[in-house]
């Protein structure tokens, strides 16, 4: 693709994303904020899956970032943007600690181990009323401070302002994730996934790379949790239970995980379906049923996820372009 077309496409996409909230109702703008945060969550999950490991603890790791950021602001008076980064760092450190026992396992065992470890963390939040607030969690979490840039005033209670803030953060994170995946480190992640024995025979420390992917993914998940906490103003252990994790898995499975945009596509399509389309059509109470049906249908008819549709379209376009000179 010529560079000018590439830049043009990106400019159009950015313009669309910037204009998007102005075409939505207030409640849809709220959904857009949560959707943006969830895009970061599910993309970070994909980063972990690059090494072939699927975790059931990713949402709890997100919660670590949320709790961490909320507590840093509350107890140490750290400004919200910095506490968000510290929350992300806390999630990464916890992931590093958990990686020692967890990466003694692989595959299904890792999946179960990650669930057990995350439940321990979640139950600690419940049991320890100080500092985590117990079952009721933390409320009245410090919001992002409002600020003005010339004619633009950012009131972060309003969804449009918070959307722009989240969009900027998520955009930077996605760019970093893309760079990681396309760096030698990212290629090694793929090697560890598909040919771990071969990679090890070539001197790659597979466990270290799995740990690195887990820590990096956790940092991004923690940041998404921090973004959520400072917008909603509350966190509690139920917000990060296995039911929420099932949603993340569903987004990843329906979207596909072989590309960066796959899980994002799954997250966007399913969230719009669940939170906007079905609610507006009056299927408020039938949503879990319809959501389940969509999942079954997509697994049956799109086993490689929604991304496979995009890949087919791109492939057709490439073929058409390749054939053009021949025709000429």
């Amino acid at each position, binding site marked *: 693709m010529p560079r000018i077309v590439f830049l043009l496409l990106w400019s159009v996409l950015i313009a669309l994303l910037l204009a998007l909230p102005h075409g939505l109702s*207030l409640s849809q703008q709220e959904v857009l904020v949560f959707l943006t945060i969830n895009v970061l969550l599910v993309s970070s999950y994909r980063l972990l899956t690059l090494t072939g490991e699927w975790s059931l603890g990713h949402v709890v790791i997100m919660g670590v970032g949320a709790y961490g950021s909320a507590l840093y602001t509350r107890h140490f008076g750290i400004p919200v943007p910095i506490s968000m980064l510290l929350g992300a760092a806390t999630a990464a450190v916890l992931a590093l600690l958990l990686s020692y026992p967890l990466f003694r396992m692989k595959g299904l065992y890792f999946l179960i181990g990650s669930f057990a470890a995350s439940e321990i963390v979640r139950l600690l939040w419940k049991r320890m009323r100080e500092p985590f607030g117990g079952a009721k969690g933390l*409320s009245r979490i410090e919001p992002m401070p409002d600020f003005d840039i010339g004619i633009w005033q950012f009131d972060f209670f309003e969804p449009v302002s918070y959307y722009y803030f989240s969009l900027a953060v998520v955009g930077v994170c996605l760019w970093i994730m893309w760079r990681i995946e396309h760096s030698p480190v990212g290629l090694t992640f793929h090697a560890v996934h598909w040919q771990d024995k071969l990679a090890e025979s070539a001197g790659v420390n597979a466990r270290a790379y799995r740990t690195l992917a887990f820590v990096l993914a956790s940092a991004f998940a923690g940041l998404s949790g921090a973004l959520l906490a400072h917008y909603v*103003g*509350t966190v509690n252990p*139920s917000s990060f239970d296995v039911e929420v994790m099932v949603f993340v898995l569903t987004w990843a499975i329906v979207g596909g995980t072989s590309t960066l945009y796959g899980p994002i596509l799954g997250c966007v399509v399913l969230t719009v379906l669940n939170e906007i389309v079905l609610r507006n059509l009056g299927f408020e109470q039938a949503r879990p049923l319809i959501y389940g049906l969509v999942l079954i249908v997509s697994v049956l008819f799109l086993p490689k996820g929604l991304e496979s549709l995009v890949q087919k379209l791109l492939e057709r376009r490439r073929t058409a372009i390749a054939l053009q000179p021949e025709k000429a």
Partner: protein
Amino acid sequence: MIASLLRSGVSRRTFLASAAAGAGALAGLLPRPLRAQDKTVKIGFLAPLTGPVAAWGKPGLDGCQIWAEWINAGGGINIGGEPHRVEFVAYDDEDDPAKARTGATQLIRENDVKFVMMLGGNSWPGVQPVAERTGMLFSTLLPSDLSPSTATLIAPAEVHPIYNVTAVDWLAANRPELKTAVICAQDDALGLPSVATYLAAFEAAGIEMLDEPLLFDPATTDFAPVVTRMLSKKPQIVCLDTCYSDYVHPICEQLFQQGFKGQILSCTLDFYDQVIAKTSAEFMEGTLFQFPDFDDPALNADFINFQKPNEFFAEYNRRHPGQWGAVSWEYASVMDLWKAAVEKAGSAEPDAVKAAMTEGGEGLHAFGKARWWGKDLFGIDNALVGNWPVVAIEGGKARIKEFRSIPDWYDKHGELMKKHMAAYNQMWDQRG
């Protein structure tokens, strides 16, 4: 026919004017319900309608629909001399604070509702900033959401878990031979304040706790070990706290299977017919809880303020057989109070309604005259508290044994309540 009328010399203008006059005259002859449809006042219903807590949202919405139909059929709500039709706009918050925030935004800023009813609990902290910004009047079924920072949040129907003291008080007066108890509860925002309340009530009644409260994780599905541990202390009373029906049912089954012969005490016993089917009427006989069936003759007493409770129960069961639960009537009873306040204020604006509702410090609760109360426990007098029924299973049917006064109990034992609430970090200034 219209064309022939016009051809016969009646002008279009005359025809339209006559038709409008005729329609106006016809409207005057029609009963009030149709005229009430001219203007509509919208009420937000923000509660879990799907998911594990749906049993405390969905039946309430079903009850509200009946309430609205009856009110609309009776001429609607009179606001400033004009009849208004009532319409409920529901949003499923899934007991999630983020979704509740979205729902509150939609209801207030898009649907233009004048009042929002919530279950509360987990979802309230997400809505709190929206409530404070917009000044909207909200109601909760869980007064533990109340705090001085949100003056527009009221708890006008249910003073959970404070009313639980009435059953323990009744037990102490009527079965004084029962002197020992154990308690279990799910470890969550609903279970813990209820544990503190029961502990205060047991202490006030001179009933000894044989063990620390057994707090189980809400994800628990196997209750055999929970029940085994409780029964190992050989209690006379087993208290199920405010467990969700998903826990109450298997715990009762386990109590039955493990041969418990004593007194069962619970806050709710939703779908008790199913529990009886799984155990036996004899086993469940005498089980005490707090939520009556509304076909109970005791609800026809003069001091009851809920409109036509027996008919409401019959209609509810006709539409939703087997789904009557603790909250089926509660949201509708909140609407009774709201309607009275709106008609008194002549306005549906939140400030005016709240002022009319709390004027004089008293209000008409479903179970009788009550007072606005709560400063001690919630930091603000926004909970309507009065009498509450003590209900027992008798011959397989829920029957009200007595209405007992919560304020009377609190006047005598308030310090105990505060002590136990503080021990469980449930005082308003200890939260979050």
